[in-house]
């Protein structure tokens, strides 16, 4: 087969905020595309031969918006593909960018993911994830009249609080442990130019002073809803060497699908009963590591970006993707292992907890990891990063994306 080694040569962002009311969707996306191309050295927009786009469709109320945004993404008279998988969208778009190059069909691929959440009502959008499954209600014995009340539990916070409870039971993590993750993320975000919630002086007490939204998650622990876009440029190993100072090679990708988890207590989905178990994430990571020739992720990976709108998820994901032993993440955070100057820095970009333009978030994870390897991240870690991972989740916490990148290519063995 093609035997092409894909590499990332550039990643661009637009400034994220709760309301980017100064631009429309197309202009928002255009900002990230321009930023990406400006940082791509000699590459011009004409060199791009494949464009991939994605966002959460129901959040802006626009169907296949990339058709309209063609001119703003340098996609006129080029192939344009739309990949969407919910919260994982960005990661899935990133993975498809990898495959477009790996297939040998295209050699300069632009992947763009965005969300302008201020255009719509995200909670209504998310409620329809669950409420689309109306057929489940009569079989569960629920009356139609109760549905409106249940919508609140169907949104992301509902599923995250069950996940948090499960995780806290397993690991004996406390609310303080959750708050510590938030503090680390938001302080990191303050040092990264494109992020949304910048809080350089936030403390654990500040977080614990905010009211509960859904126990055990407090208002101060929840990600914001952001407007933003991210663009990444992929090419082949040969071209990357000519263009970039430090090309970032994508050595492993995995995107397993699990059964949908319980969404809220009243909603459909019959699969996972413990939403913090995450077999899909474990298997995606295993696949990506085996492709990348990584046997000991906790030793071989230098930097990680995981998708965690809620702090409990950050603790859970770093364990599930093999960076820490099960239930040991809270202690690692307490000891500063995951801090900017720690042994295993995590989410130094500020993470999803500080900036969540949903469709873009899962792409911003591998994009930031790639920038850390290049040494060009907004909040660069002091140590040299050779190998890094970018993780994303979405759907009913059942769709995963996992990307492993390094400054050295990993020859595929056939």
């Amino acid at each position: 087969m093609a035997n092409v080694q894909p590499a990332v040569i550039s990643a661009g962002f637009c400034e994220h905020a709760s309301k980017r009311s100064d631009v429309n969707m197309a202009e928002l996306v255009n900002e990230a595309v321009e930023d990406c191309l400006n940082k791509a050295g000699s590459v011009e927009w004409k060199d791009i031969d494949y464009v991939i786009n994605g966002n959460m469709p129901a959040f802006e109320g626009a169907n296949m918006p990339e058709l309209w945004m063609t001119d703003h993404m340098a996609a006129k008279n080029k192939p344009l593909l739309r990949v969407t998988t919910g919260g994982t969208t960005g990661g899935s778009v990133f993975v498809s960018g990898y495959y477009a190059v790996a297939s040998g069909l295209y050699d300069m691929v632009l992947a763009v993911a965005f969300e302008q959440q201020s255009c719509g009502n995200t909670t209504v959008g998310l409620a329809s994830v669950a409420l689309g499954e109306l057929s489940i209600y009569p079989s569960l014995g629920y009356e139609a009249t109760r549905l409106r009340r249940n919508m609140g539990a169907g949104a992301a916070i509902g599923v995250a609080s069950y996940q948090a409870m499960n995780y806290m039971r397993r690991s004996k993590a406390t609310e303080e442990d959750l708050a510590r993750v938030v503090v680390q993320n938001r302080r990191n975000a303050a040092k990264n130019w494109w992020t949304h919630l910048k809080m350089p002086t936030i403390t654990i007490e500040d977080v614990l002073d905010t009211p509960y939204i859904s126990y055990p998650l407090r208002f101060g622990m929840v990600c914001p809803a952001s407007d933003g876009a991210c663009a990444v440029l992929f090419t082949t190993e040969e071209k990357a060497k000519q263009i970039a100072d430090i090309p970032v090679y994508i050595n492993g990708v995995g995107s397993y699908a699990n059964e949908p988890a319980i969404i809220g207590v009243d909603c459909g989905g019959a699969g996972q009963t413990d939403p913090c178990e995450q077999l899909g994430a474990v298997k995606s990571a295993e696949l990506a590591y085996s492709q990348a020739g990584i046997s000991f992720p906790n030793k071989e990976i230098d930097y990680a970006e995981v998708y965690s709108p809620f702090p409990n998820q950050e603790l859970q994901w770093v364990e599930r993707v093999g960076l820490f032993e099960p239930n040991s993440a809270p202690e690692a955070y307490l000891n500063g292992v995951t801090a900017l100057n720690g042994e295993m820095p995590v989410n130094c970009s500020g993470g999803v907890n500080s900036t969540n333009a949903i469709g873009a978030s899962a792409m911003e994870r591998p994009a930031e990891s790639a920038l850390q390897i290049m040494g060009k991240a907004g909040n660069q870690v002091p140590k040299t990063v050779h190998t890094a991972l970018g993780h994303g989740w979405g759907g009913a916490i059942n769709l995963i994306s996992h990307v492993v990148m390094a400054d050295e290519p990993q020859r595929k063995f056939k």
Partner: protein
Amino acid sequence: MDKVAIVGFYQVKPGLDIMMSPYEMLFEATRGALDHAGLKRDDLSTVIGCNNDYYDGKTISNCFKVEAGGAYMKDESKVEMDGAHAMMYGLMRVLSGNHKLAMVYGISMPSCFPYESARILETDPTFDRPINILNGYTAGGMQMRAYLNAFGISEEDIAKVAAYNLKNAAKNPLALPEAQKTNISVDEVLNSELLSAPLRKLMYPVLCDGVTAVILAPERQARKITDKPVWITGVGHFNDTYYLGDRDLSSCSSMEKAAEKAYKIAGINDPKSEINVAELFGHTACEDLILAEAAGLADKGKGLSLINTGKLNPSGGTMAGYTPAANGLTRIVEAVKQIRGEAEGHQISGANKAIASGQVGFCAQNNIVYVLEGGE
């Protein structure tokens, strides 16, 4: 391009309102495709779905299709365009060498959603959407007028194409029963209701529920799985600008570029003589001609001659029943059947090289075309 084959496929018999849940329907297709190829679900390593959140009335509509789509604990993703676009992603995954067996499916149930309304949501939200007169009907009407005017073609000629498609559908056992019209006359088409002048109702496809699934494998695996692999020897994919005023609607430049690229990869120099069958996704009878001309099967303005040769849409094409998000895959499956000599009732004898296409957008903005070949 390395050789990749379609080794199995299944199309659920479409219906105006299939009395099945989408998951039952999807399961029938994915199970059917695996059985057709003589494979087990365990053999699959990746699944690419094609569905649209607006069509399904559900955000992240693929997250509930994991089990029925055969994607549980598989490397899964979703393309939200046409099934033919999803096959492109499946093809990329196989070509990369990471995957040896890919399932691609497309699904939608127009009986459950207002398709034309969902298309309104495709328009530019800052101008066309507030004015709200650009839609599937009016875009089709303007495209047809552009084509008629550019080449001095009459409405009757387009009606002939529509009648030809509906008669072909009558010979296709997997066409929508309501679209199978053995005795339809050109006059009947010309007297059907105007949707958006000059586009008439019988020149526009009937929406139907359906699912189509295909299984892709690289050469080594394909030869072990089936005696009749159909090879994907070329693929081209291009996108034009959204703005209708910037485009020449009497032709289709994205299809021209896509076909040119696909032919180049497949080593086809003279599509007119080399291609035996073309299963094209035209959104109207008129668009079938525009796409066929853009694909180089006929000179510009001379597409009508193709209906005499019979090689354009022998299955009836989109007019045989239009399932959004699956139609491109259905076209591919029909072309595959022709090459395998299994197109019951509408077989073109000796068909060995075919093209099949998929599209999204108003007036075929984004086109993808495959060259499919049989034999070694």
